[in-house]
């Protein structure tokens, strides 16, 4: 066990820090979920990252990446969050579809889809859930009917993140009309601008439009847009969900920044808050550290050829509950100012905590609810019998 950075790792950190310092936007960008303007500002940032080859750092060099190992990826993420760089509008592509395409796509599909994904020219939404297929995702009813070299898509997708402004979506469709449950499903891509697609943004708890409903009414796409074999959709989808729940979507750096700000907030208001708040602040600091250490441990194991297992589920429960606790504690320190919107004249920096608190409430729900994660831990990690 060696918990020190090598000279190369330190040099790499320096390189990332230097690039970010001279490239991050001078002003914070408007939210990519609130307006087209914000979305396009983030697309421009993705293009800038790509131009510096900092967009898809874990991807192979052939697709614009740097083929970083997981420890280097952690260092990159640490520097990225430390610098206050914009959130990644491209994360469905970077962490979900990109790796899945590399694993299951044909050479032609990779050549068609990966470069514009890396460049930010095509930004992706995911279209898995349906009104009747949430936690029970195998209940997917949207259909894809094969007609010659095309599929005709029909159905209703919901809770599609980024769909309000994105260019493309990847979704799960029933290609075998007689099939049940996990069988007969395929993963198919469609442009959100295609004829027959209607996107209906869903206002969120915070008033933004981070997700949307997608209505598909006889949408024709080439059969080329199917990833993997017909009927392989479920297993590919589970592999993608593994990436999502796994290491990469929630890097510890994000929570370490939040914990640092929480400690600073506490120290600035120490004399005004009740004593019990201190324990919550320290818990937030320790939890962010514990999460980082856990990810370093997993990353070291994976780098040595190990496989990710149920820790994808333990991670998800831990970070989502930590995120809520960090923000609740901050609001308790802010007292009566905690309810102010970011736009309130007296808000100053305060409003960010309320935004973050709302966002944190989604954590235990999306990417597989924490109830589902607890079932997975109980059954796959502890070996308890299925219901």
């Amino acid at each position, binding site marked *: *066990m*060696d*918990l*020190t*950075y*090598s000279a190369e*790792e330190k040099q790499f*950190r320096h390189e990332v820090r230097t690039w970010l310092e001279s490239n991050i936007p001078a002003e914070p960008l408007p939210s990519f979920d609130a307006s087209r303007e914000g979305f396009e500002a983030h697309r421009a940032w993705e293009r800038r990252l790509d131009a510096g080859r900092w967009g898809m750092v874990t991807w192979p060099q052939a697709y614009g990446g740097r083929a970083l190992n997981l*420890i280097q990826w952690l260092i990159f*993420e*640490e*520097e990225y969050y*430390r610098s206050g760089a914009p959130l990644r509008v491209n994360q469905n592509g970077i962490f979900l579809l990109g790796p899945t395409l590399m694993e299951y796509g044909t050479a032609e599909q990779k050549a068609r889809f990966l470069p514009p994904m890396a460049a930010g020219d095509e930004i992706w939404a995911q279209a898995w859930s349906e009104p009747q297929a949430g936690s029970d995702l195998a209940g997917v009813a949207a259909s894809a009917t094969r007609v010659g070299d095309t599929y005709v898509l029909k159905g209703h997708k919901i809770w599609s993140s980024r769909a309000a402004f994105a260019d493309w979506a990847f979704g799960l469709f029933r290609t075998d009309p007689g099939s049940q449950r996990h069988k007969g499903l395929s993963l198919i891509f469609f442009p959100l601008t295609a004829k027959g697609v209607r996107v209906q943004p869903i206002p969120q708890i915070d008033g933004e439009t981070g997700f949307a409903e997608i209505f598909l009414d006889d949408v024709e796409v080439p059969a080329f847009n199917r990833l993997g074999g017909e009927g392989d959709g479920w297993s590919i989808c589970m592999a993608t969900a593994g990436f999502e729940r796994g290491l990469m979507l929630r890097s*510890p*750096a994000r929570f*370490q*920044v939040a*914990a*640092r700000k929480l*400690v*600073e907030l506490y*120290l600035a208001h120490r004399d005004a808050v009740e004593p019990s708040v*201190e*324990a919550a*602040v*320290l818990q937030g*600091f*320790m*939890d962010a*550290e*514990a*999460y*980082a*250490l*856990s990810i*370093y*441990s997993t*990353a*070291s*194991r994976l*780098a*040595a050829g190990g496989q990710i297992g149920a*820790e994808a589920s*333990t991670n998800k*429960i*831990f970070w989502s509950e930590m995120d809520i606790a960090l923000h609740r504690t901050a609001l308790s320190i802010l007292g009566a100012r905690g309810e102010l919107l970011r736009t309130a004249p007296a808000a100053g920096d305060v409003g960010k905590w309320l935004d973050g608190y709302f966002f944190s409430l989604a954590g235990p729900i999306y990417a597989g609810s924490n*109830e589902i*994660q*607890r*079932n997975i*831990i*109980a*059954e796959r*990690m*502890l*070996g*308890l*019998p*299925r*219901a």
Partner: protein
Amino acid sequence: MDFRFTDEQLMMGSVLRDLLADLCQPADLRRLMAAGAPRDERRWSAIVEMGVAGALVAETQGGLGLQPVDFVLGAEACGHACLPEPLVENAGVALPLLAALPSEATQPWLAAGLAGETTIAIQHPVNPFVADADTAGALLLVTDHGLHLVPREAVRLTVQPSVDPFRRLFTTDFDPPDWPPLVGPDEADRLLAAALDRGALFAAAQLLGIAQRCVDLAVAYAKERQQFGKPIGSYQAVKHHLATAQVKIEFARPVVHAAAACLPQGDLFSRARISHAKLAAGEAADLAARTAIQVHGAMGYSWEVDVHFFLKRAIALQTWWGTPALHRGRVARRAYTGALGPDATFPMESSHA
């Protein structure tokens, strides 16, 4: 950067774990309890024969010259087995402290300790009692004048029964003029601070082992016990209790292991990480023990089911080698005065990594 144990480190843990799986099952614990003896001599001999007493003592002094990170999995195994004998305190804390004292007076005791012929008990300002004093050959005792090494025969012991039937706690009294301090108060403070780090780290490791054992016991029971025609472990209410306890364990473990690796730094950051490990493992053990009792239902509240042994050890170790308040204070010092943020996961005072 490589957050993995080496094969040798893993081996150290598994050898001890296998030995205790043979010799330290709950039936063995019950037999010892019925006998009222301080030790199971067969088990203690087997442990002594492993030759790990000198694990953390330098090779030049006759020890194995290992680091805390080499010993941490062994301490975890001792917690998992609820080991009654003082392997962790003796090898993990007392002998390294003895080895750091001037050698003229300590040499015979150190030699006997390394050979497994005797153990050393240790008094520490954070612990109100001395554990395993009655079976020790000598005690390291603290006064305002420094640290004293006193043969057991010269110490008056008053037994202080613990809720944990295997913990042997004592208050002590001796005549300091007969046993002048080996080091003065300043040097004693330095050595005792290092002992606190080792004591807290290895208590944390044992708590981690206890926590996992509690979940293991409850999982085994939940697979067997049937209600409404099905194993109770198939019901979500039971599954979610156990999953929640396991999540606590998963996020205490890397902290304990990182704390072991950074202990030699002896700085603000390593001390805080050890304290974090102690707090996290203590909370994991507390939740896992209570969850195991709940999952066992009424049986969980009985003397017959083994969970209470682990509950009681968890209660004891959560305040041994520093209360949660003491350790939270050390974390606070680090959080309020040290570098924070994503590039400060592995900080140290001696470099600006």
